[in-house]
């Protein structure tokens, strides 16, 4: 480094490097300039100067200098290394890798460059390259612990065939250690390394060896719990069940509420009796656990006995009491449930319902629970005692029973009863915040989003210091499309009041998704896109964030966690939030494509002056905001730079309304970007392929669209949406002109070859297929709607017939043994979709109106259908109603003034006069 310089300048050059490493950029810059005065063409100095400038936020200069430096001294590994670092700082890892490789060509044994390269390779998952680089590092510096470990991990990650090699490497490393290793301050790291090695041994099937190793090294392993768990898991895999079971009991004694331990013990229990192959049985046990009802009655009895004995042993474990509810049936279930629930109702556990709600998926259990709780309610409201008990319950027990019942009926869709129960509870004790939250949730399910938002806000007002209920109320407001209000409320809990940035910085994705969806509903595509893309950005950031761990984890030896983290990152984009955001963005782009923004010329023609004015105003406002922000920016940068180069400038959003995003020339190719991520990461979701179908149909990519159709049929051929796509696709294909070019002919021949393989269309016309689909799903509203839509698509003259298919659907009562009321089959969401179909696709306003009236009856709380009990209708009534509002009464959308609900009504004046 700096070899070509005379000694004085060479020292200066060292100073640059040193100040770069210690972040004293100004000092480095000065030194660089001193050298450049004498040797203005010195490449390495130019490069280093560029790198230093890069850290002082002068990007363009930096690139210029670094490139110039490289040009002047293309044979210098320093220049190449610096160029790589520059790319790395801009997250251009592929380019950076290229630069590093060039640097290594010049100086193949440079450890620093090798190390940097290995980090990038791990980040980019260039695993074969990673192994190579790591091997080179180890050969160069075998006395370094990190190099051994790094090589082993690289082998492990690279391929499952190299795992055994990784073990060998670790063992070779251990061979280099003294007997009394590790010293006290490295015991944790060493223990982690040993556990990692044992898990590797397990992974490649050397179970005996793993167990032996575990026993041998046990004194050196610090994490005793993991080592115990590992031991048990090995014992199970080796089929040494009895020993394993004993170990599990020991684990249970450590934490009797650990579901994992209990479940494993359960597996042992099953094993001992059935003597199945250990692994299958293990699977079976877990499988059985999730999908219930597969136990034979004999098995249930044995399980029951097991849990009873466990319950005696671990009196305080609630897991021991809760798990049997999953497999017990009938009377035994009822008794166990009563036993579990009663103390929790006395205790007042607000989460009791969510704890039990998985049971509602099992047939019959909801009925039993309903019966049980109603009995309790009856008994408590009678003499204040549980049946067959002498001890009086505290008054709050009734409250929690009502609370449970309200959630129970909500879950069953009996919103009337749910609301009456929750109102009763509120009357009993109006100070419990959860009651208002639950009432808000019930109203949301019943379709009155505005009232739900107002109740959530009422709950929020009761404890202004609680972030959770604040967030809940924000979410409800967004669902009710009150975005501005929601922002104001959300801002109460952000740090500096600059909520947009702050919520974004905190990666608050639920907020961004909910607000994006709200903007989408309101047709503000720009802002919707902005929110959805922000979520997408968070995921990119999360991927980015792993970079630091490549070196950190190797140094700290948290290897098991490191490998887990990498595996997690590999499937990061399959996360539900990402899926939602990507789907939302694609929908925005589709809508944008279908109804593109007006070009300026059209604006003048089409829009009225008023809207134009509004737009101008908005634009002006945006500009002003921008200007202000810029000014602020300048101010802060002026003050910021004075302080040692470390600045905190908030980047100003140049496009707060997403207008630039809307100006994209090709929305479909933007959509395709996100579609690809979805297809790669959530290929088992219907929605992915629906979107793919929509995008590719618009792009005229026939084969890709066909692929989407085939995927849909694979996933769920009976789904109404799959059916629609299938019919739409072949309808569209048949309406296309005959193929002309070779490529088109090829596409046609593919389709012709494929069509017979689709059973739904085998030797049938499209309308026949449509009819058959109707025949198969005659009772389902959504299927009928799909058939009607397709009937109309295939032949627009059959509109009346299509409408009739929809209107002839009947809303049946779901059979329940419930003591109160009945549940209808149709879901609110579906009915709204059907209404939109009638209104927008079939364009039959009369039918739409008829449908609306009909649904308003089914869903009296729905705002969409203007049901008789929704706040949309009651608003005017409420205003006339001068009676004092009751606690928990939703007063329409004027929630912000809910404080006014307590205004004096004349009596107070008397008070005041008398006092003074």
């Amino acid at each position, binding site marked *: 480094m700096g070899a070509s310089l005379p000694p004085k300048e060479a020292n200066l050059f060292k100073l640059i490097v040193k100040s770069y490493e210690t972040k004293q950029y100004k000092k480095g810059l000065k030194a660089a300039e001193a050298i450049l005065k004498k040797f203005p063409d010195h490449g390495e100095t130019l490069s280093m100067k560029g790198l230093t400038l890069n850290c002082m936020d002068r990007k363009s200069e930096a690139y210029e200098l670094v490139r110039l430096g490289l040009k002047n001294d293309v044979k210098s590994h320093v220049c190449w290394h610096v160029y790589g670092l520059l790319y790395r700082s801009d997250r251009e890892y592929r380019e950076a890798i290229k630069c590093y490789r060039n640097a290594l060509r010049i100086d193949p044994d440079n450890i620093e460059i090798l190390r940097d390269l290995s980090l990038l390779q791990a980040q980019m998952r260039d695993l074969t390259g990673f192994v190579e680089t790591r091997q080179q590092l180890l050969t160069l510096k075998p006395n370094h612990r990190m190099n051994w470990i790094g090589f082993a991990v690289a082998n492990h990650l690279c391929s499952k065939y190299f795992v055994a090699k990784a073990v060998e490497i670790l063992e070779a490393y251990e061979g280099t250690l003294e007997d009394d290793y590790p010293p006290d301050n490295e015991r944790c790291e060493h223990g982690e390394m040993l556990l990692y090695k044992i898990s590797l041994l397990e992974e490649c099937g050397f179970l005996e060896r793993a167990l032996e190793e575990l026993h041998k090294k046990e004194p050196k392993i610090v994490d005793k719990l993991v080592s115990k768990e590992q031991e048990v898991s090995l014992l199970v895999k080796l089929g040494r069940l009895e020993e394993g079971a004993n170990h599990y009991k020991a684990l249970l004694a450590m934490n009797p509420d650990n579901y994992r331990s209990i479940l494993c013990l359960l597996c042992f229990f099953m094993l001992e009796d059935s003597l199945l192959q250990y692994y299958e049985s293990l699977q079976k046990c877990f499988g059985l656990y999730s999908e219930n009802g597969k136990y034979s009655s004999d098995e249930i009895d044995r399980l029951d006995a097991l849990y009873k004995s466990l319950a005696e042993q671990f009196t*305080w474990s609630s897991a021991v009491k809760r798990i049997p509810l999953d497999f017990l049936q009938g009377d035994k279930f009822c008794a166990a449930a009563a036993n579990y629930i009663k103390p929790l109702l*006395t*205790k*007042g*556990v*607000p989460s009791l319902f969510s704890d039990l709600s998985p049971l509602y998926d099992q047939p019959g259990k909801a009925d039993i629970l309903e019966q049980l709780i109603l009995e309790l309610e009856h008994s408590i409201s009678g003499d204040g005692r549980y049946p067959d008990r002498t*001890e009086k319950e*505290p*008054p*709050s027990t*009734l*409250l929690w029973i009502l609370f449970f019942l309200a959630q129970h009926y909500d879950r069953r869709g009996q919103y009337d009863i749910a609301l009456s129960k929750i109102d009763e509870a509120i*009357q*009993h*004790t*109006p*100070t*419990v915040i959860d009651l208002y939250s639950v009432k808000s949730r019930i109203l949301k399910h019943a379709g009155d989003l505005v009232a739900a938002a107002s109740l959530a806000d009422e709950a929020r*007002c*009761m*404890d*202004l*210091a609680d972030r959770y209920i604040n967030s809940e109320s924000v979410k409800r407001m967004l669902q009710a499309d009150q975005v501005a209000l929601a922002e104001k409320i959300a801002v109460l809990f952000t740090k500096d009041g600059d909520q947009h940035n702050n919520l974004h910085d905190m990666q608050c994705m639920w907020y961004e998704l909910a607000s994006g969806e709200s903007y989408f509903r309101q047709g503000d595509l720009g802002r919707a896109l902005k929110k959805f893309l922000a979520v997408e950005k968070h995921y990119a950031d999360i991927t980015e964030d792993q970079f630091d761990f490549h070196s950190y984890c190797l140094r700290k030896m948290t290897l098991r966690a490191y490998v887990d983290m990498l595996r997690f990152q590999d499937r990061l984009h399959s996360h539900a939030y990402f899926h939602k955001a990507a789907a939302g963005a694609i929908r925005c782009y589709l809508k944008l494509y279908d109804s593109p923004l007006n070009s300026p010329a059209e604006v003048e023609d089409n829009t009225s002056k008023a809207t134009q004015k509004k737009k101008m105003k908005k634009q002006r406002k945006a500009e002003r905001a921008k200007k202000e922000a810029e000014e602020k920016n300048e101010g802060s940068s002026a003050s910021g730079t004075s302080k040692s180069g470390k600045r905190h400038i908030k980047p100003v959003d140049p496009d707060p309304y997403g207008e630039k995003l809307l100006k994209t020339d090709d929305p479909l190719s933007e959509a395709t970007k996100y579609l690809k991520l979805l297809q790669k990461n959530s290929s088992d979701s219907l929605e992915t392929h629906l979107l793919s179908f929509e995008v590719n149909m618009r792009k005229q990519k026939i084969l890709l669209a066909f692929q989407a159709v085939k995927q849909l049929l694979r996933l769920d051929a009976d789904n109404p949406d799959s059916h629609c796509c299938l019919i739409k696709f072949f309808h569209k294909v048949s309406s296309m002109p005959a193929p002309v070019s070779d490529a088109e002919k090829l596409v046609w021949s593919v389709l012709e070859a494929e069509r017979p393989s689709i059973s739904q269309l085998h030797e049938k016309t499209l309308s026949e297929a449509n009819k058959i689909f109707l025949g198969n799903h005659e009772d389902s509203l959504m299927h009928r709607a799909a058939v009607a839509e397709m009937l109309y698509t295939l032949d627009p003259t059959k509109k009346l017939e299509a409408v009739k298919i929809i209107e002839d659907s009947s809303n049946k009562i779901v059979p329940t043994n419930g003591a109160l009321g009945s549940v209808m089959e149709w879901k609110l969401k579906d009915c709204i979709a059907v209404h939109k179909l009638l209104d927008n696709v079939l364009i039959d306003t009369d039918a739409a109106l008829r449908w609306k009236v009909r649904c308003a009856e089914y869903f009296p709380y729905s705002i969409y259908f203007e049901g008789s009990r929704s706040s949309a209708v009651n608003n005017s009534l409420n205003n006339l109603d001068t009676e*004092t509002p*009751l*606690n928990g009464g939703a007063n329409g959308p004027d929630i912000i003034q809910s404080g006014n*609900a*307590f*205004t*004096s*009504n*004349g*009596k*107070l*004046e*008397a008070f*005041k006069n*008398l*006092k003074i």
Partner: protein
Amino acid sequence: MGAGREVAISLDGVRDKNVMQLKKLNTALFPVRYNDKYYADALASGEFTKLVYAIYWEFYCWSLSLCFSVFSCDHWAPIELDGLHLLTETVEISKPVTFWREVILSFPSVLSMFVMSLSRWLHHMISITMLHIDAYYNDICVGSIACRLEKKEGGAIRVYIMTLGVLAPYRGLGIGTRLLNHVLDLCSKQNIPEIYLHVQTNNEDAINFYKKFGFEITETIKNYYTNIDPPDCFVLTKFTTPSQAKK
């Protein structure tokens, strides 16, 4: 050795963050609506306005003498907990169950810390399950007392109880008594000689309740209330130190 279920009470001040709780209570309890001044006065009176939370909990005690080994260990002293230091001073080895009940009942708000501290000093203990307190459950706000501090001519301060109420299902548990005693104690500590309040003339339960604490009817005001029947009220007053009251 012993087990039981108790209702314990803890008092909490009214702040702008939870004043809505007080509003909810008043809406449920009183036929009268209160204006902003009421709430401003309540907030301003500080310690004289309290929300009361009911806490139900069960406790189980075993081998109480062993408990002592925890409390008496040298490390107990540095823990700063309200009231808990009393334990170290007063505990003797073989206290009866009732003693522990008293101790725990009188410090419900430190229960959770108590449990925490137990586990913190686990390594000094012989056995973990000596004293098990099952739960500190969901505390519910069930009542309130709201006062206003008034300056009389001449500078003397008196306390006006604006509202005192407990939700219907939670009456008869001694909660109102606790609330009133809290204010009476404060008055005597701060040498405030006079406490008074208004009661509707037909509200005999309330009148008897206050009489138990030494309140007397000192005045009757006709047509005090406007929208409720009867519109008249009594003024109930308690003078804590008669000599000062005469001034």
